[in-house]
C-alpha cells in the first residue's frame, strides 16, 4: 500500500460545545465562515422541533418516539434558507472516504461527518449505542489521529483513524456510508429575517397541520391515549420499558432538556430580537413552561421505573400531563403562525 502523503495539519476551527450534535455542527461550521450563528438559531431556522410517536417502527423492540425532525433536516434546511451552498459526498470505498477527508483538511476546509455512535472510543461507554445519526466536524490531523470538534463534548477530541473509519461506515438503519459535507459558498451578507420566519412557519405547519394522527400535536395526544393502555396490554414490566424509552428519547444527550423544547425557547428569544417582535419573547416563556411540564412527565415516569409510584397512579398522571403539553403547544403554534 502506498503511504499517504499527508502530514500533520490543523485548521483554525473554534470548537463550541452544544447540546445537540446536528444543530451544533451547523452553527459551528457557519461560525467558522464568519456567520454569527448560535446553536439555538440554527435549530430554529432548520425547524428542528417535532413530535412523533411511531408504534410500528421499533428500536430494540420498543416503539420509536422522536422529538426532532429527521436526521440531516436541520442542517439542510438552515443552509438552504441562508443561501449557503453545501457539498455532500458518500462513499463505497472506505480508503477513498478517508483519503477524501484528508484532502479536505489539507484544503483548509473543516468537514462534517455523519457517524455511528457505537465505535467512537471517546464516547462514554454508557452512551454507546448503535445510532447512526451522529455528526461531528473534522478540523485536523496529527499523525494517525484526527482532530475532531464533536459538539456534544466540552473540548475537542482526538480519534484514531481506524476508529473514525469504522464509525463513518457503521451499518444498520440510516447507515452513514461515509457521508461527509462541507460549505462550498457562504454569502458575504446574510439577512436572518426571512429564514427565521420560514423556520417558525414550518414548525407550526408540521406540528399542527400534519394530517397523520401520530405526528405533531395530535401525536402527543395519541401517545397520551395509548399509554393508558400499556400496563394492561403489555404487562407492567414491558410497559415500564416503553415508558423508559420515551423518557430517554426526551432527555437523552443532545436535546438540551425537555425534548428540545428549551432550545426552541432560546431560539424564540433570538427570533424576537431579529424580527423585532417582543411578542415572541412572551411566547418563549410559554414554551419554557411547556418544557417544564415535559420534565415533570419524565420525573413521574422515572419514579414509577424505580418502583416508587404504582402503575395505577403513574399512567393516568402521565397521560394527563401529556394532554396538557399537547394543548399548550397547540396554543403556542397557533399564536406563532399569526406572527
Amino acid at each position, binding site marked *: 500500500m502506498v503511504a499517504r502523503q499527508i502530514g500533520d495539519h490543523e485548521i483554525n476551527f473554534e470548537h463550541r*460545545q*452544544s*447540546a445537540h450534535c446536528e444543530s451544533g455542527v451547523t452553527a459551528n461550521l457557519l461560525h467558522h465562515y464568519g456567520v454569527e450563528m448560535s*446553536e*439555538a438559531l440554527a435549530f430554529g431556522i432548520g425547524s428542528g422541533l417535532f413530535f412523533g410517536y411511531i408504534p410500528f417502527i421499533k428500536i*430494540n423492540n420498543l416503539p420509536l418516539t422522536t422529538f426532532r425532525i429527521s436526521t440531516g433536516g436541520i442542517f439542510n434546511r438552515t443552509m438552504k434558507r441562508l443561501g449557503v451552498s453545501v457539498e455532500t459526498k458518500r462513499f463505497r470505498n472506505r480508503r477513498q472516504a478517508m483519503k477524501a477527508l484528508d484532502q479536505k483538511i489539507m484544503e483548509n476546509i473543516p468537514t462534517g461527518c455523519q457517524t455511528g455512535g*457505537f465505535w467512537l*472510543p471517546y464516547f*462514554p*461507554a*454508557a*452512551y*454507546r*449505542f*448503535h445510532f447512526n445519526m451522529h455528526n461531528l466536524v473534522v478540523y485536523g490531523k496529527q499523525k494517525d489521529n484526527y482532530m475532531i470538534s464533536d459538539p*456534544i*463534548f*466540552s473540548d475537542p477530541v482526538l480519534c484514531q483513524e481506524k476508529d473514525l473509519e469504522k464509525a463513518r461506515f457503521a*451499518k*444498520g438503519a440510516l*447507515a452513514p456510508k461515509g457521508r461527509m459535507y462541507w460549505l462550498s459558498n457562504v454569502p458575504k451578507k446574510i439577512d436572518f429575517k426571512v429564514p427565521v420566519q420560514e423556520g417558525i412557519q414550518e414548525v407550526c405547519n408540521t406540528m399542527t397541520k400534519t394530517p397523520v394522527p401520530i405526528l405533531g400535536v395530535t401525536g402527543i395526544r395519541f401517545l397520551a391515549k395509548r399509554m393508558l393502555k400499556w400496563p394492561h396490554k403489555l404487562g407492567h414490566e414491558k410497559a*415500564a*420499558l416503553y415508558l*423508559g*424509552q420515551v*423518557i*430517554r428519547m426526551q*432527555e*437523552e*444527550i*443532545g436535546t*438540551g*432538556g*425537555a425534548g428540545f423544547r*428549551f*432550545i426552541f*425557547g*432560546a431560539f424564540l*428569544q433570538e427570533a424576537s430580537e431579529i424580527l423585532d417582535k417582543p411578542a415572541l419573547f412572551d411566547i*418563549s*416563556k410559554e414554551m*419554557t413552561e411547556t*418544557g*417544564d411540564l415535559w*420534565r415533570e412527565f*419524565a*420525573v413521574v*415516569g*422515572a419514579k414509577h*421505573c*424505580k418502583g416508587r409510584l404504582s402503575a395505577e397512579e403513574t399512567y393516568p398522571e402521565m397521560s394527563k400531563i401529556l394532554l396538557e403539553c399537547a394543548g399548550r403547544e397547540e396554543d403556542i403554534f397557533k399564536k406563532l403562525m399569526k406572527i
Partner: protein
Amino acid sequence: MKKSEVPQDGGMAGNMREIAYAVDENGHYVKVESLGWEPKIVALKQAWGVISQEVEDILEKIKAGKLSPLAFHMAKNQMSLGLLSDYMEIAKWRVKRHMKPKIFNRLKPDVIEKYASVFGITAKELKTIPNQVAQELYKDNITKNK
C-alpha cells in the same frame, strides 16, 4: 427551567458535562453545563439492565451447549443477527448458522478473523466467554477502555 435548577446528578458518564438550556434571573436563555439528571439516568440504567439481562441469558445457553460464543459477543455489542450480517457482509442465515456450537467450531480461520475484527477483539477472545457478566455492563466497558 431556571439556571439555578439545572440538575447536576452525576453517575453514568464520569465527568462528562452536557449542555442544558435554562433561563437566567432576567428570563433570558443561557447555556448551562450539566452533569446529568436523575430521571434520565434511571431510564438509561433501565436500558442497560435489559442488555445485561440478555447477555446473561445467552451466557447460560452457551454454557449449556446450545449456542456458540459468537452469540455472547453479538449480544454484548448490542447487535441483532441482521446488524451483524451487515458488518460481516454475509447472509443473515449464515450468521444464524454460526450460532450453533458445532458449526462455529468448524469455522475457517478467515471467518473467525473477520468476526473478531468486527468486534475489535482477537480470534482467541472471540472463542472465549467470561464466567459471568458484570451486573452493570456499561461500567465493565468503562474500565476496559481505560
